[in-house]
């Protein structure tokens, strides 16, 4: 039997298991295929791109085993793809470079030599590894060959498969966690240029590259000087442009304009050193594209009309409201550029506002009457960028809502108009602009939000929704959607939170709920609650690892670097929004998302429930001082603000404590679920690891987590 040939060889990486009989889990799959031949005889693999292959084959049982497995992947088999992905992940976890190279080379060879009908599952495997394991596969192993391999495969396969491949390719665009390019734009563009030759626009490519450059340099600038609010704004705008570019909806002339402006930026930045390992600015979680860094994008437009912004990167000021602007931001020069064309969309105006590009007064902008009269005050300090108040000093009442969202003023105004249901009243024409009290405006749709930080939070939640929706749409492409059955009346009656649950878990802070007012009796699971959970995750932190090698590692999920900041209370450098689990440090938010996805997948995959008992018994493995996602005390700490923020009337309600208590009880089960989910994932991964390497004792799996940890440690040492 083929298996025996391999079974006698030392098991890769598990010397302690040499004596054990064939319980190498993948061997079982082989055992079911008694006719499978040793690789060398099975097929004439003579792919030239793997020159070391023959020697490696003899030396490396893992490689040999992997190849064997790949040869079984002739149909779209979820278990095989899963197993092979996990194996690839294990190599990554062990930092086993040879193993990872073997995976890459074997995969390359297998795709190249497979029959046209069998190429797709192999590509799916590649896709799976890239998306589930990520670096270094996506950065070092695969990019070397992926474009050529993909193109060759594409040319070999039939139409239906091509469609599927194109679909897969499309997912690569935002396949990285956080919606980033899975392999970097170059790879995808190379493929796209080949397979849909007409669709690639070289101008666009240039812009993308320039944009990436500009973004990098701006981020670096921000990293050098985190106080630089300007840079922060720039980064925000550039990030938005990048996102819009990625989404496709940009016209050639717009691209051209962007290119012009980017060149200008580049010219400005020339000579600026780019620190190689400067901490990345992206303290935001992947799900929040605009993040805290730049919550103001959409509103920003309103001011550009009459604001002579400086091109040189100074604080933008409003021409006739200069008195409101802090000193220290002196307009230096007014750079005139040709007026950007109308159909630029928002992005150029965003650029304009941010002072990245010069502006001209003829730029058409959207604004509201209130804001027309309002001064936009920007202050030169970091904190105020995020919470910079759009002072509504020109409204009818002449009041200046500072921290409030202006809804109270709106209420008062409506009440004072005292329109009754009489024809007399109704036939009057009122000077009332329905959206005037909602200055915070979404740049992507017609949604508007109240002023002040509360309104901004809602706008941001709304933008998150857009982002998630776009991502989800991409994921769903090709999958047929259908109309749901209608709910039973009982469900609708109780469905006070319908909009929270409606789309999917991720849309938590979805559009609808973000508009729900806290009437003092907010819906049970509302956007505030979800936002709170998110905030908890973002607030979790760990000390920066002392091991420099470790400290240099990015988050394994989103591949973004951690941002070090000094915590006064702890007197230590910390990473925010970070969590350590399984000896890996990842963003807390990333991990939470990943866990949620993993659990969902698992629930579907492991319907047999065979291992349920095991999973349930496995305790959580997080370190003592690591804040758990959704930890209770954090939730409580964060609750009051959210609640208060959600009460537009703003009247301090004595019922607040009661409400808090309710919210707390709401938090608990959810936190518990999160933790349970965490446990589940850990347990399952242990189970997998256990079953791959430990043949002796199923008992190992059942031991407490410390045991497993030490077991793993031991394994690592041996490896």
């Amino acid at each position: 039997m083929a298996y025996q040939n391999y079974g006698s060889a030392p098991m890769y990486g598990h010397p302690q298991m040499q004596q054990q009989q064939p319980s190498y889990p993948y061997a079982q799959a082989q055992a079911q295929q008694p006719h499978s031949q040793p690789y060398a005889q099975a097929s004439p693999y003579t792919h030239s791109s793997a020159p070391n292959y023959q020697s490696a084959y003899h030396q490396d049982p893992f490689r040999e085993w992997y190849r064997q497995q790949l040869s079984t992947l002739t149909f779209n088999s979820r278990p095989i793809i899963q197993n092979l992905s996990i194996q690839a992940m294990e190599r990554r976890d062990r930092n086993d470079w040879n193993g990872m190279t073997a995976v890459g080379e074997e995969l390359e060879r297998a795709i190249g030599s497979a029959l046209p009908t069998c190429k797709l599952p192999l590509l799916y495997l590649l896709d799976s590894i890239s998306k589930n394991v990520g670096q270094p596969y996506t950065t070092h192993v695969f990019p070397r060959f992926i474009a050529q391999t993909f193109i060759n495969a594409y040319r070999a396969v039939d139409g239906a498969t091509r469609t599927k491949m194109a679909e897969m390719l499309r997912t690569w665009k935002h396949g990285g966690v956080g919606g980033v390019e899975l392999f970097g734009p170059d790879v995808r563009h190379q493929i796209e240029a080949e397979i849909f030759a007409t669709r690639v626009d070289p101008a666009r490519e240039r812009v993308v590259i320039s944009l990436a450059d500009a973004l990098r340099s701006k981020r670096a600038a921000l990293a050098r000087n985190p106080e630089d609010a300007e840079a922060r704004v720039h980064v925000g705008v550039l990030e938005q442009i990048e996102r819009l570019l990625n989404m496709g909806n940009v016209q050639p002339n717009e691209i051209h304009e962007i290119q012009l402006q980017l060149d200008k930026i580049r010219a400005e930045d020339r000579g600026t050193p780019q620190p190689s390992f400067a901490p990345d600015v992206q303290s935001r979680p992947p799900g929040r594209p605009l993040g805290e860094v730049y919550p103001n994008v959409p509103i920003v437009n309103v001011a550009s009309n009459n604001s002579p912004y400086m091109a040189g990167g100074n604080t933008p000021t409003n021409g006739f409201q200069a008195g409101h602007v802090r000193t220290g931001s002196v307009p230096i020069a007014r750079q005139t550029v040709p007026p950007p064309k109308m159909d630029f969309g928002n992005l150029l105006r965003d650029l304009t506002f941010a002072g990245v590009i010069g502006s001209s007064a003829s730029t058409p902008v959207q604004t509201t009457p209130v804001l027309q009269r309002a001064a936009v005050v920007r202050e030169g300090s970091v904190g105020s960028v995020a919470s910079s108040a759009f002072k509504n000093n020109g409204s009818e009442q002449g009041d200046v809502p500072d921290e409030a969202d202006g809804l109270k003023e709106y209420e008062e105004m409506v009440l004072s108009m005292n329109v009754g249901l009489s024809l007399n009243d109704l036939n009057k024409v009122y000077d009332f602009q329905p959206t005037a009290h909602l200055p915070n405006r979404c740049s992507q749709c017609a949604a508007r939000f109240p002023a002040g930080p509360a309104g901004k939070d809602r706008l941001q939640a709304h933008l998150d929704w857009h982002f998630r929706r776009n991502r989800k749409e991409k994921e769903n492409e090709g999958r047929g959607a259908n109309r749901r059955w209608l709910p039973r009346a009982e469900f609708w009656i109780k469905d006070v939170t319908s909009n929270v649950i409606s789309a999917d878990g991720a849309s938590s802070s979805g559009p609808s709920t973000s508009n729900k007012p806290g009437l003092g009796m907010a819906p049970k699971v509302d956007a505030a609650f979800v936002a709170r959970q998110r905030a908890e995750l973002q607030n979790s932190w760990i000390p920066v690892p002392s091991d420099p090698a470790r400290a240099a590692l990015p988050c394994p999920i989103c591949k973004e670097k951690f941002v070090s900041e000094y915590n006064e209370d702890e007197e230590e450098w910390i990473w925010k929004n970070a969590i350590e689990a399984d000896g890996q440090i990842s963003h807390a938010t990333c991990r939470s998302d990943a866990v949620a996805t993993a659990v969902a997948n698992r629930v579907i995959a492991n319907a047999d429930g065979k291992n349920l008992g095991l999973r349930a018994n496995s305790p959580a493995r997080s370190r003592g001082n690591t804040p758990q996602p959704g930890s209770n005390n954090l939730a409580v700490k964060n609750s009051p603000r959210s609640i208060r923020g959600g009460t537009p009337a703003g009247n301090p309600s004595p019922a607040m404590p009661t409400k808090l208590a309710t919210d707390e009880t709401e938090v608990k089960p959810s936190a518990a679920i999160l933790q349970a989910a965490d446990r589940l994932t850990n347990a399952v991964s242990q189970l997998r690891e256990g079953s791959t390497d430990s043949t002796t004792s199923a008992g190992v799996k059942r031991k407490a987590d410390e045991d497993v940890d030490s077991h793993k440690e031991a394994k690592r040492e041996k490896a």
Partner: protein
Amino acid sequence: MNGSTTVTYDLEAGMEWRFELEQGEAIAVRVTSEEPIYINYQEIPPNTWYPLYGDLRAAIWSPSPGQIEVSSAPSTAYTSLSSTFPFILSVHLALERRRILAKRNINARIDYGQDGQDEKVLSEQERGPRVMVLGPANSGKSTMIKGLLNLAVGSGMGWSPGVIGLDPGTSNHLVPGSVSLSSPTQAVPTHHPSHPLGSPPTTAAAMTLASDVPTLGWFVGSSEMNTSGMGKMCFPLWRNVVDSMAASWRLRCQTDEIVRTSGLLIDTPTALIQPTLGAGKGDKTRHGLVLQIAAAFEVDVVIVIGHEKLTIEMQKLLSGYGVSVISAPKSSGVVDLDDLYRSRIRAQQIKTYFYGEPALPPTLINLPGRVAAVETGLHPYSFTIPWDELEIYRVGEESAAPSSALPIGKQRILSATRLTRVNPAASPNIHRLQNAILGLVMVSDEDKRTDLPPRKVKEVKKEETKQEGDVKEEVKAEEGDDDEEEEEPIWKEEIGWREVCGFLTITKVDTAKRKFELLTPSPGKLPSRVALVGSVEWIEVDD
């Protein structure tokens, strides 16, 4: 920007730009000025092409001087300074005032520490306005409702008014022949005439904010409020449906204070202006249905559009109950829609229910610049099931055996809303079922009749053997049954006015194989085996 065909219109303050699209005509509008410009009081997003297609007839209103760019000049478009939108805004301000007061009353009660103690007491002070809109055909009732809704949900206050669509001819969210109760939270766009107040949820991520409107639907069997003829409305059923809707609404208000303070908007069918509509023989009550609706939903504002006499009648009728009756002007821009147009829109509605919103015409997709998102296409599901697996009932069947045919001394007491099983084997029923829209009703054992004669048991047994037995033999047996007597339904009448869990259509009745070919919105097993049928039909055509 191609700039080749686009047309720019300058709008004066308070000016309406009205357009009427022909079949197949598609345009897109983009706002190029600063001030907000509205379509049915949804603000048109800035610098975004806003598609308008599918026979849409509507008006874009600019409260302040503004400018719009149109992708191509529509066949009919003109501007007018006489707009009803300011009136709608005034009504909104009055309603908004009531909502704010209701909200403050709730907050005050909570402040006084009586939180949740007597939530069952729905104090009038804590309730938002319940508005019913009445008016003749083509007077702009739906426009009024949509404007008021968009103003409410667009206020940033987070209102979520209940919306009741009582017009089975133009369903707000579902298919003709149905009435609905929904709770939108987002401003609804106006791109095309289907699902004018948003679509019920799909399995895909919502494309637009207005999607995924939580909706309850009831099936009333006819898209017309006719008192006779084929599409005859069963008014007793209609009345029961109204009460069923009202019960759901009241229950929701008890727990959901946002909905409670936001109030209710009721769109009504044109036929309600007929004073004698739905009255039984010898019933002298005028406007019985209006009274019933007003009572069921505790309506306190009635807006009558463009009908002075009706306004006076309503004032007489309702003022005693503390209802404010307002006369609203009819817009000079409303188009008299012909029957052909209406039937086309109805077919499009049903298609939208199954297939999602009409696809964006290619001319609009390729516009330079961003185009507002529209829901993508949906994939309904087609399959065949044996006749036995779908019990189809008709509510208020006319043809009953004459009393003279009953045994002497027996009197048949017929309920107006009794259920009649529609046997597909009987030849007239085949035509009735072919292409019919069915409303699927969830039933449980509790809905089984307890008053059935024991004979029924035998039949049930027979049905069981039927499934195993030889088909051909059964055909004969079945035909024999038909001649004898109509099958007694095993369900209580109540299921006739229960909310439906969805709609499906019979695309084919296969008499040889005794199977139905169905088109359902969702894949998988049908959520129920019991369906209601009426006179609503739909033949799928590719357009």
